[in-house]
């Protein structure tokens, strides 16, 4: 194969060099561990494609790479988050939260004061220059930085570094007058900024004309406590709560992410606000999946049996039309049916009102909504079962029916005593995977009812499945709680993964027979 021209080596190099470049960029921006992991992956790739003994992995590598990054990595990360306190209140890492405390400053009396000038640069950036009022040789200037007019920069911003300016050297750019600064609406963003001198002193704009040195509000103790220098209060991190607390046990400042072990899992089973809806939703999820499988299978089977009758006409036309709900993209079908089941103006109720003078509350009544969800899922799901059942029916040899006909059987006996016992065992893996699919049928519930109607006294919905309920905890609720959501996600995964495992065992047994 290698006709002297090293195609493979060139290809590997063409892919490896950009990857290494990206790895280097990652390293340069301070993510050393991630860079190391990337480097390991690149090396593994090069090894797999150049070493002749690794030939199976040549075919596996690309697929595993995608699977690793977008399935295994998120999975591991999610399981990890499940063991941490991570929510909208506990969003930052501990180091970032600590840095925020360290950035808080207060003005000291009799502090050093500085004259300042703001220089505008040609590229739209600005440079701050300050000069000690008592000692004109102490001069400092910043690197050019961005300043957004009329906008306060985030309080979390790091102080901007001021570097000493050697004698005789001047700052480049155009100095701005006070009136100019005001007119350009730069005063308030400038006031919110903090600058740090080489000796770590923090300075900031004091009043309108001067810079003054400020003191850090919190001082770190040897044992991790923070001491407030203004009023002497002491706070210490509480890693259970993910907050700094004072001596009275009150939370102070921003929270941080923290490892809390099985706390989230305990909450699911002990916190009544979560336990109540959780078990109710679990039951409904189970019932929904089981009923969906049963209904779709029954209807699919009925249709396939009807269409497999040897003397039925227009079979192909029927079959094509019956597949339609499967052929139309699912999202569109779900939304179409959402419109039809609209409680006030939808076609379903218009029809029922006209025929029976009765209009079910598909949207506001919990049982109405559940019925609608099941009906819609039946409508969406039966074609798949019909296709599968048809395939199975066609594989049953017709001779056994002929034999039973001689014994004086009829069609009902044939179906329940011949067809079903033959088809059902072969269907079990399909039924299980259909159950698992419906267990996590996010699209249907999210798009059709959004989980609604609201459960009384809870922030869950009556038609919520565990997967949509969890999604809402993570992304929709007032206090987005990634930790709790991830813990539930992990439980869900264990459950559905177990189903998949059983399924594997079953199919393997069948293959062996």
């Amino acid at each position, binding site marked *: *194969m290698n006709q002297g021209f090293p195609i493979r080596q060139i290809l590997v190099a063409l892919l490896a060099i950009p990857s290494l470049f990206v790895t280097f*960029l990652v390293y340069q921006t301070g993510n050393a561990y991630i860079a190391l992991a990337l480097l390991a992956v690149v090396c593994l790739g090069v090894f797999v494609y150049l070493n002749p003994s690794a*030939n*199976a*992995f040549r*075919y*596996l590598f*690309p*697929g595993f790479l*995608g*699977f690793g*990054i*977008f*399935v295994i*990595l*998120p*999975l591991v990360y*999610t399981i990890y*988050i499940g063991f941490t306190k991570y929510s909208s209140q506990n969003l930052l890492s501990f180091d970032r939260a600590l840095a925020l405390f360290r950035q808080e400053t207060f003005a000291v009396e009799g502090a050093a004061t500085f004259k300042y000038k703001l220089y505008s640069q040609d590229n739209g950036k600005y440079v701050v220059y300050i000069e000690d009022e008592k000692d004109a040789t102490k001069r400092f200037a910043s690197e050019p930085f961005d300043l957004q007019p009329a906008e306060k920069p985030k309080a979390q911003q790091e102080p901007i570094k001021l570097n000493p300016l050697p004698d005789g050297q001047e700052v480049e750019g155009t100095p701005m007058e006070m009136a100019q600064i005001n007119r350009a609406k730069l005063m308030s963003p400038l006031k919110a900024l903090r600058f740090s001198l080489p000796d770590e002193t923090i300075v900031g704009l004091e009043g309108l004309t001067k810079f003054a040195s400020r003191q850090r509000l919190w001082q770190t103790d040897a044992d991790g406590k923070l001491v407030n220098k203004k009023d002497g209060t002491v706070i210490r991190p509480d890693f259970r709560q993910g907050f700094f607390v004072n001596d009275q046990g009150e939370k102070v400042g921003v929270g941080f992410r923290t490892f809390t072990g099985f706390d989230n899992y305990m909450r699911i089973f002990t916190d009544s606000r979560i336990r109540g809806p959780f078990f109710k939703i679990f039951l409904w999820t189970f019932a929904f999946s089981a009923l969906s499988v049963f209904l779709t299978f029954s209807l699919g089977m*009925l249709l396939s049996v009807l269409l497999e*009758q040897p003397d*039925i006409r227009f079979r192909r036309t*029927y079959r*094509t*039309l*019956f597949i*339609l*709900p499967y*052929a*139309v*993209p699912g*999202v*569109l*079908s779900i*939304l*179409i*049916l959402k*419109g*039809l089941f609209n409680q006030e103006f*939808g*076609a379903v109720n*218009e029809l029922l009102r006209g025929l029976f003078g009765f209009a079910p509350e598909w949207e506001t009544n919990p049982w109405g909504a559940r019925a609608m969800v099941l009906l819609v899922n039946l*409508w969406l799901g039966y074609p798949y079962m019909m*296709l*599968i059942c048809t*395939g199975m029916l066609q594989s049953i040899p017709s001779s056994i029916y002929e034999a039973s006909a001689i014994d004086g059987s009829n*069609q009902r006996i044939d179906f329940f005593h011949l067809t079903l016992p033959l088809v059902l065992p072969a269907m079990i893996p399909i039924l299980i995977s259909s159950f698992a699919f419906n267990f996590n049928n*996010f699209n249907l519930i*999210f*798009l059709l009812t959004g989980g609604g109607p609201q459960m009384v006294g809870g922030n869950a919905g009556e038609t919520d499945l565990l*997967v949509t309920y969890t*999604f809402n905890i*993570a992304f929709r609720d007032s206090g987005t709680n990634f930790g709790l959501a991830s813990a539930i*996600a992990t439980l*869900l*995964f264990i459950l*559905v*993964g177990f*189903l*998949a495992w059983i399924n594997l065992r079953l199919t393997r047994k069948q293959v062996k027979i």
Partner: protein
Amino acid sequence: MKRLTPEQKTRIRRVLSHAVLIAMLAFVLVPYIMVVSASFRRGNFAPSSLLPDHVSLEHCKYVLGIPYEEVVNPATGETRIVKAETPPLLWFWNSIKVSSIASIGILLLSGTAAYAFARIHFKFRSLTLSSLLILQMFPMVLALVAIYVILDFMGQYVPGLGLNTQTGLIMVYLGGISGYIWMLKGYFDTIPASMEEAATIDGATQFQTFTQILLPMSLPIFAVVFILSFIAFMSEYPVASIVLQARDKWTLAVGANSFLAEHQKLWGRFAALAVLSGVPITVMFLLCQKFVVSGLTSGGAKE
């Protein structure tokens, strides 16, 4: 009661069958007919009748991005020109683009991996194969926090792969290969390896036997995998809705749902979009029906 002759029984059975089938068909078809009618009806009401009372092309024009005149005030006859800033049909095109590129990627990744699982012996082969399937059961929706973080990180270094890019979304989709690996492996297993062995004796390399012998024989199953994954991606909503933020990058699923937001439900526009984008996909699916059915009976599932 008079006993029925076998001929009469057969006839009754046949008539009953057709009656059941036609009744069922009505349930299946009526929703679609209503959507078609809603797309041609003036106003944005939930679909409720089989035939539109006021036929109008305004929704179709809107979806196609063609400007049209709308009566603002019926009393004075005042009108205004309405034109979509992003023509909604663009979402359909985005979906086609994302789904077909991702499906081709799926073919490449799962095809090569399935070949290794079917033809090459290596350690922990069946364990790996089972783990793939079980790990894939983790619902992607619930790993969105992690996926968000990963894409955000990738975007900092490789601009085209970050959040709010379609390439980023395609990358995420490429993770979902394990079901397809199983399907392809199952098919490869049914093809006897003797031809490949013969070719190896004649001096063909492994890669040559894969691309020149096994692949041409497996084209039907590749068609099945392509169609199934294409359809799955066309309908994927949650990941796309989190990854794609800009309106002009949305996919069909995200855009279609945006018409039905809680406060303002634009059924007419939704219906027009559903018809204009649903029809080509449906026709394509029905044309490939034979492939899909054969693939399903060999064990794939639509998600």
